[in-house]
């Protein structure tokens, strides 16, 4: 392996942990509140780790958002808009967050932001990656996966030109999404909470090791790349007319082949997947996505390659 393949990054000195980006996703809300009170667990040598509730109004009402989805609000248009109090709450909040942890795209931005989420889908532990070229993140995810084994932690890559969205974590140089399910909105399940806690522990361990000078050799990372968004079948008025089929329900990450059952109408008929090849569906039956016209997303398996990395 030639030395030219080694990537150098500055030490990750400023790290944030976001909870409550969606106010009813309780693992993140609970963990961040815990750590705001007592941050001993998240301290690492040479790192400033800031736990932060991103959407306090939504957390207080135990609702996903107040005016608009905060996790879609970090567009350049929103971040540069003026209008003060007239703007939707979450747009104002995005500007505040960009001010504290950004500005997005600048050298002053935080090094890493972990954004904690839950889903009603049976996704298990999922790490969400926004760029296949972020070697720092790829190495971190590789480290976490190995540390958690034999437990499972999968990587979802959303680099899709149309389906990618402007997340709260995108303010940082290295944004990392943590999605753990299944958990109903507004509910705290002990096993889900503990799983998220363990992932974060390994993530912070990685950062500490990296900052101490450890070199991480080149590696490959299995990922699922977002391909297509599939909506529920609807009638002329836009009402949903079928449910996720019992054969597909809870089968996140399992192959869906052309001809496999996909939806079941309310009177019992099966609607089948008509794609051209095998896909790996995820975010199957996520509550928040009914209004976003999404029953599930399809993904394709890919092997990503990470250069070796070390601190500058």
């Amino acid at each position: 392996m030639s030395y030219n393949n080694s990537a150098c990054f500055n030490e990750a000195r400023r790290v944030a942990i976001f909870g409550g980006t969606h106010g009813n996703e309780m693992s993140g809300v609970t963990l961040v509140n815990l750590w705001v009170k007592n941050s001993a667990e998240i301290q690492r040598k040479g790192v400033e780790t800031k736990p932060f509730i991103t959407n306090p109004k939504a957390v207080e009402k135990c609702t996903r958002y107040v005016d608009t989805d905060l996790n879609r609000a970090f567009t350049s248009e929103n971040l540069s808009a003026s209008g003060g109090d007239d703007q939707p709450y979450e747009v104002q909040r995005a500007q505040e967050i960009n001010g504290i942890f950004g500005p997005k795209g600048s050298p002053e931005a935080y090094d890493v932001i972990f954004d904690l989420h839950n889903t009603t889908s049976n996704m298990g532990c999922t790490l969400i990656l926004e760029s296949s070229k972020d070697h720092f993140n790829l190495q971190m995810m590789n480290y976490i996966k190995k540390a958690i084994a034999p437990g499972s932690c999968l990587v979802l890559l959303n680099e899709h030109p149309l389906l990618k969205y402007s997340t709260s974590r995108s303010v940082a140089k290295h944004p990392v999404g943590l999605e753990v399910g299944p958990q109903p909105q507004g509910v705290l399940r002990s096993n889900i909470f503990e799983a998220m806690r363990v992932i974060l522990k390994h993530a912070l361990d990685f950062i500490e090791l990296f900052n101490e000078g450890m070199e991480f050799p080149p590696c490959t990372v299995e990922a699922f790349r977002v391909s297509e968004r599939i909506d529920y079948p609807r009638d002329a008025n836009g009402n949903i007319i079928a449910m996720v089929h019992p054969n597909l329900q809870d089968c996140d990450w399992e192959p869906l082949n052309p001809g496999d059952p996909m939806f079941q109408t309310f009177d019992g008929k099966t609607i089948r997947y008509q794609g051209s090849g095998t896909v790996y569906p995820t975010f199957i039956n996520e509550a928040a996505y009914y209004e976003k016209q999404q029953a599930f997303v399809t993904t394709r398996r890919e092997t990503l390659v990470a250069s070796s990395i070390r601190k500058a």
Partner: protein
Amino acid sequence: MEVDEVVCLPRLPRVAVCGGTHGNELSGVYLMRELLKMEKKETEKEEEPLSVLMVLSNPRAMLQCRRYVDTDLNRCFTHATLNGPISDAAPYEIIRSRELNAMLGPKGSPVAVDLVCDLHNTTANMGLCLIAYSDCDWICLHIFRHLQRQMPDIPMRYIHFDVSNKESYSLDSVGKHGFAMEIGPQPHGVVRSNIYTAMKVGVQNMLDWVRFFNSGTIFEGGFVDVFSMIKHIDYPRDGETRNITAAIHPQLQDRDFCQLHPEDPLFQTFSGETLRYKGNEPLYPFFINECAYYEKGIALSLARKRRVMIPAIRVQTEQEKQANKQEYPSEEEE
């Protein structure tokens, strides 16, 4: 009660099926929409057609996919709330409860519908439950038994809340007979096909039973296991913020109706400590980790299980009904 004695009960000509009492409990919402669609197509061919009222209880909450808009509709049906003074600025659900009471009641009057079946979902792993205020309403208990026999693959329980008619607060208390059909686990805001199908089949079997009953079928007696609610347990909370400081213990999570013994784990604090059940007697937990109950201060509910003997029943004939009238003329007063 003699074993062979058949109890004769009045016909049930009017049944109400209600969905969307909580706007984010989607099996009932979608099932009612489907039934309302189908109602337009079907024609009744029965000799004595059963009148089935299909109701979407809380349309505003359904539109927003929320449990309620101002206040929980399913707590608005006490006599006091239904009959007390009301202003124009009253919460939406209080106004709605009076509309529903006019439509399906009035509660306690002779013209109330005969049976109310109110559809609900829960995030708790409860299977299918019929929840009623009585443990001796033979109609409700026989319907439960019928459902058990027709749907043997679905875990099914009868839950009894020992609340007087005056204090009863839920929509199902408006009818002469009534119960909530509660099915879980399903996250709020989601429809799971297996849960929807169980609800659809449950409602169908319930209506079938009413038709059989009205047409003179004798339903033999037997016994039913009834879970009578004794008390609720709240989460441990922080003294100042009132935020919860522990989650349902992993060994209790999803174990609704598995007997809980003194010293069994109840909660796991966020620092990893196990908090245990300190009651004196083993009880049966249910509504374990129901999302909507966090704000009501309920982590789980506890019930005693007992076996209730139910008599054989059949519908009252016209002659028996007339004979009954002559004996008790005051019952016919409007």
